[in-house]
């Protein structure tokens, strides 16, 4: 029996949200894929192993993970999905509460979360709030940190100062000179500074907001990849005859089909930022899982079956897995075949992708002059971004390519415009013939600043002339998608007896894996603001990023800063201990302030400026909150030791060397404004903020604003949603365009009426004697061929600085190694806060992801390049049970560069968390943890090993 024949085994009948469905699932089909085949796209695929909960549905009222529920068992059952609970305009109460509480960011986990919450609510046995951690352990959210989800489920609003915090008293007020913390919670007109809910919130909570693969395309083919079983090998021969002959196979793609153009999966504004070392298919395989061949077929099942029929002979090559060994003479060369100039590599003969060696002043002299010197070595691990939506692309041609048919790529990317540029370069296509766009993107965290699926889909579409889909599995995400660079970091600090730094020395060895995507950028950025934050007359940095035959590393939230700030801030904590100085005081003494030079190994260029400064306030806010406490007591018992710790971080608000965005705002007939902006929404909340900006600049309300974004056909160029540029670059372009349109409208009203003195208001323009509605003005413009569109660009040439300070009070169980967080505090210098509730969510989410890094997460390799943590149950992403409520405080600052005085606040929130926690653990147990994650077994071993 062939696979196709197998499909017709038995017909099942069931109903979904009250509508009858008749289907013939394949014998091994799970309910999720059957529901999605019937266009129930509200049922998401996050893990495919029953761990994440994104696919949760109710079967006869009982909630199940539909990815592990055999489809044939649906026969005769009633299925309820998120869309069956309620729809926009008629949401179920629990859905409405998710909207009101901002209980999602990217929203990909939300339909499953809502279905689960509804089941909990419906079962009287499950409504005890203390049971929520257990009941929600099968629902992973990577964006929010769960505080807002808890608020939505139990119908409360936790104030930003935290659930256990008592209302400020006179004493507290005196401790801070900063005035009240800015309010969060839903409020107001939707103008900037208020917290309207997410633009598409009602659709998100009912599962009707489409993501990348939530679309039915007739004739869609599917692509599956045969991965390399070896860490380093060359393909001697490849026989795909049997695979190609399998019924349902349309094409087998191999290195013979690959363009010979080298590129990088990493995408930046300048393509020269990353080494060109990658081919769509390479005859040399440099890590386990690298593409050997791909099959395009009628179904994933057939494509996978065909992959198993491909016969490959390999010539094995020596492999290297330790970056130290990779640098030694005689080490196997990962890219020994590359020309260092063509590929932009420091030295492929030493596996060296990039290096930085520089000194400012003399560290030797600085250390000689120091009364106290501390030094140490820190180690960080591989992290998987674990955006709930995996990488995926659907590609198709509009008509025949020979007759001008255009290539369309619908992809899960943070950088659609950069993907368009590189795809055109790789396949020698005219940009006018290529459209790249995204639907709502289900999380990114830097992982989607890579071109991982678009190239293969393009090749498949061009070879077959058919629409083709390629979707990463969760195991692909954990084994072949780039991870956070693991780094070994040496720090030496010298200081005078009164605590002034005399020297700061940094040594970094980064394992970039088999390809150099983001290797230079992560190394340079990682060593930048981490070092520049402190005034020290003598600084030295020696950093290297090295090839190995491990899976590639890439861009991850913080872009290298997370790793190096971990080491630098822990070293500073050690210095404070040696000097018997309060760690907040040590930062006050040594942190840069406006007027100070920003120095890594030389003074940073004039593009980086103090557009505002709130670090001093952040230090005060965090210290005051820590001192105030939150009345959460440590568990009883002598085995529990309590400690506190803190860390600072600084980040430039925009990536260096240019980040461009063009936005337009148009008044349309009907009196609605249309904002077009190229940047991508992936949970960062930019669409909501952009609409707020436009509404504010045009003096109107959010309900008049429509927004199209993230589409090379529909919006102006944008470098992409990375480097936290969504508000400070794209938002600034939106502000400029909306401001210009406001002037245009006043002029148009004057032309239309022949009189002056017009003022733009919410629904129209008011003149001296008469008024003109937006609708009337738009009609007049249409009739007179007047274009009411304003377009503006922002180039990100000037960059400001944002700051975050995190503090913890922890209890550590010396018997088990458990770290229990008693109080978590983050103070953020976000400039003017555009949407306080949303910004708070970004901070909470960054803290959550960082706590995963600090305590739990590690992509584990076996020492021979194979990942052993291949499913989510073996890679522990924080659950609701794992996270404290973090108190969030905003400094009162106003940036001269950012729109309305705003600064970026997405990735920076992650950076100070791991060192603050490590410093608190050190305070508690008297031993400094230097390795991430600070898992219970590692902490236990520090104490007992």
């Amino acid at each position, binding site marked *: *029996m062939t696979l196709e024949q197998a499909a017709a085994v038995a017909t099942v009948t069931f109903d979904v949200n009250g509508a009858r469905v008749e289907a013939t699932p394949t014998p091994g089909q799970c309910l999720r894929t059957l529901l999605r085949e019937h266009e129930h796209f509200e049922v998401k695929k996050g893990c495919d192993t*029953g*761990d994440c909960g994104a696919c949760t549905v109710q079967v006869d009222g009982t909630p199940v993970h539909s990815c592990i529920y055999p489809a044939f068992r649906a026969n005769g059952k009633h299925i309820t999905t998120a869309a069956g609970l309620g729809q926009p305009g008629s949401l179920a109460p629990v859905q409405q509460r998710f909207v009101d509480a901002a209980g999602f960011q990217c929203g990909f986990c939300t339909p499953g979360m809502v279905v*689960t919450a509804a089941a909990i609510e419906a079962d009287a046995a499950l409504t005890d709030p203390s049971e929520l951690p257990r*009941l929600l352990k099968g629902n992973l959210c990577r964006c929010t940190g769960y505080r807002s989800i808890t608020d939505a489920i139990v119908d409360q609003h936790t104030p930003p100062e935290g659930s256990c915090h008592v209302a400020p008293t006179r004493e507290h007020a005196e401790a801070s000179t900063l005035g009240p913390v800015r309010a969060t919670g839903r409020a107001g007109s939707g103008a900037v500074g208020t917290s309207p809910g997410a633009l598409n919130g009602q659709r998100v909570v009912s599962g009707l907001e489409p993501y990348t693969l939530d679309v039915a395309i007739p004739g869609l083919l599917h692509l599956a990849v045969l991965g390399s079983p070896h860490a380093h090998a060359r393909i001697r021969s490849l026989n795909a005859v049997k695979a190609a002959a399998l019924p349902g196979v349309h094409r087998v793609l191999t290195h013979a089909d690959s363009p010979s153009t080298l590129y990088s999966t990493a995408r930046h504004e300048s393509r020269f930022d990353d080494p060109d070392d990658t081919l769509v298919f390479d005859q040399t395989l440099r890590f386990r899982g690298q593409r050997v061949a791909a099959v395009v077929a009628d179904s994933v099942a057939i494509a996978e079956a065909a992959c198993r029929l491909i016969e490959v002979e390999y010539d094995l090559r020596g492999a290297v897995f330790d970056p130290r060994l990779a640098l030694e003479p005689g080490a196997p060369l990962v890219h020994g075949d590359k020309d260092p100039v063509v590929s932009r590599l420091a030295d492929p003969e030493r596996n060296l992708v990039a290096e930085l060696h520089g000194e400012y002043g003399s560290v030797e002299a600085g250390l000689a002059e120091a009364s106290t010197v501390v030094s140490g070595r820190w180690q960080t691990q591989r992290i998987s971004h674990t955006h709930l939506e995996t990488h995926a692309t659907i590609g198709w041609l509009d008509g025949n390519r020979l007759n001008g048919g255009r290539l369309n790529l619908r992809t899960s990317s943070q950088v659609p415009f950069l993907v368009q540029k590189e795809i055109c370069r790789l396949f020698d296509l005219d940009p006018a013939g290529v459209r790249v766009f995204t639907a709502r993107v289900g999380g990114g965290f830097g992982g989607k600043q890579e071109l991982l699926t678009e190239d293969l889909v393009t090749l498949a579409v061009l070879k077959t002339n058919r629409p083709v889909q390629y979707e990463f599995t969760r195991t692909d995400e954990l084994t072949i998608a780039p991870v956070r660079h693991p780094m070994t970091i040496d720090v030496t600090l010298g200081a005078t007896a009164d605590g002034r730094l005399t020297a700061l020395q940094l040594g970094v060895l980064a394992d970039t894996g088999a390809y150099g995507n983001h290797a230079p950028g992560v190394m340079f950025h990682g060593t930048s603001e981490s070092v520049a934050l402190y005034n020290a007359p003598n600084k030295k940095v020696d950093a290297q990023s090295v090839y190995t035959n491990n899976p590639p590393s890439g861009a991850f939230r913080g872009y290298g800063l997370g790793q190096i700030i971990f080491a630098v801030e822990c070293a500073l904590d050690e210095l404070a201990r040696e000097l018997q100085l309060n760690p907040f005081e040590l930062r006050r003494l040594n942190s840069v302030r406006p007027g100070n030079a920003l120095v890594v190994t030389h003074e940073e260029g004039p593009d980086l400026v103090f557009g505002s400064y709130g670090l001093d306030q952040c230090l005060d806010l965090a210290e005051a909150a820590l001192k105030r406490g939150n009345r959460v007591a440590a568990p009883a018992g002598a085995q529990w030791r309590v400690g506190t710790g803190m860390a600072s971080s600084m980040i430039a608000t925009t990536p260096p060397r240019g980040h461009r965005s063009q936005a337009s705002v148009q008044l349309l007939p009907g009196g609605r404004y249309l904002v077009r902006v190229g940047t991508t929404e992936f949970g960062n909340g930019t669409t909501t903020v952009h609409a707020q900006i436009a509404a504010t600049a045009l003096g109107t309300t959010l309900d008049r604003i429509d927004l199209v974004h993230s589409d090379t056909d529909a919006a102006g160029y944008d470098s992409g949603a990375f480097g936290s540029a969504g508000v400070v670059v794209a938002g600034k372009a939106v502000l400029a365009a909306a401001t210009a349109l406001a002037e245009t409208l006043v002029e148009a009203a004057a032309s239309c009426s022949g009189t002056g003195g017009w003022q733009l208001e919410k629904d129209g323009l008011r003149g001296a004697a008469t008024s003109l509605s937006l609708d009337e003005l738009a009609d007049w413009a249409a009739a007179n061929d007047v274009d009411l569109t304003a377009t503006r660009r922002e180039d990100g040439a000037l960059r400001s600085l944002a700051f975050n300070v995190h503090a913890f009070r922890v209890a550590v169980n010396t018997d088990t190694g458990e770290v229990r967080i008693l109080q978590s505090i983050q103070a953020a210098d976000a400039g003017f806060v555009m949407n306080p509730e949303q910004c708070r969510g970004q901070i909470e989410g960054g803290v959550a992801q960082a706590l995963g890094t600090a305590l739990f997460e590690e992509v584990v390799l076996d020492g021979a390049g194979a990942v052993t943590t291949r499913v989510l149950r073996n890679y522990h992403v924080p659950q609701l049970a794992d996270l404290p409520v973090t108190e969030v405080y905003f400094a009162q600052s106003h940036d001269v560069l950012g729109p309305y005085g705003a600064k970026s606040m997405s990735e920076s929130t992650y950076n100070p968390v791991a060192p603050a926690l490590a410093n608190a653990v050190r305070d508690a147990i008297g031993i400094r943890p230097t390795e991430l994650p600070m898992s219970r077994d590692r902490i236990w071993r520090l104490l007992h090993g």
Partner: protein
Amino acid sequence: MDLSTLTRIIPARQRSDLDALGPTVVPLAGGSELFADPRAHLTGLVDLQAFGWPALTFPSDGLVIAATCTLAELSRLPRQAGWAAHPLFYQCCTALFGSFKVWNVATVGGNLATSLPAGPMITLAVALDAELLVWRGDGSDEIVPAGEFVTGNMTNVLGPTDVLRSVRVPLTSLQATTAYRKIALSPLGRSGAVLAGRLDRAADGADGRFVLTVTAATLRPVQLRYPRVPAANELARDIAAIDCWFTDAHGAADWRRAMGLLLGEEIRAELALVGS
């Protein structure tokens, strides 16, 4: 996930339907484990749920749990007079990494037959000295003590044509006092160590034997048996002598050994208090 190589599902309504079992055809219970891993070697499944076995039956000498009983059903096991071990059933359900939604489909038999070190139904069955009824492929029946069922990390005494039919818990175990401890690398994470202690009542009502079951930290379940609650140093010596601690993403072997010692002593102290 889709098990795309399957070509048939065979509903098992009578024992002869199991004849289809073999290297590429395996039993299906809830599916939560089978459908969570690609299994390209499989061609078919035999659906045990078609048997319609009653989940829980209550003969006078104990409790019989069908292999197809879900964890959800087990977690709601009604209290029976004198069953002091009743809390252990729910406690062991909570040690499953899967959520309460997985409980709705995951089965006791599936958990045992998967034989992962962290399988909490293994902890339960072994701690209560349950007897497992195995339907051998040759048509014979065999009673296997729970402590001998799992032989290693994902290995057990079942052959490819065998099926686990049921778990019988003796009344003496149900009437015993139990104590339970679990630890993982995160508050509710996949178990790094799950230990259960059992203090039996002798026929005369006096304290009887003490049994400590160590799971999740070891490649296979380990039982330590004593005629009465042992002294702390005696128990510690025996736990320390266990030779199959292991390392994976859920904990290092040395930590697991230490947790075995720590939690074992907590259980000993708790049950000693009950006994005194």
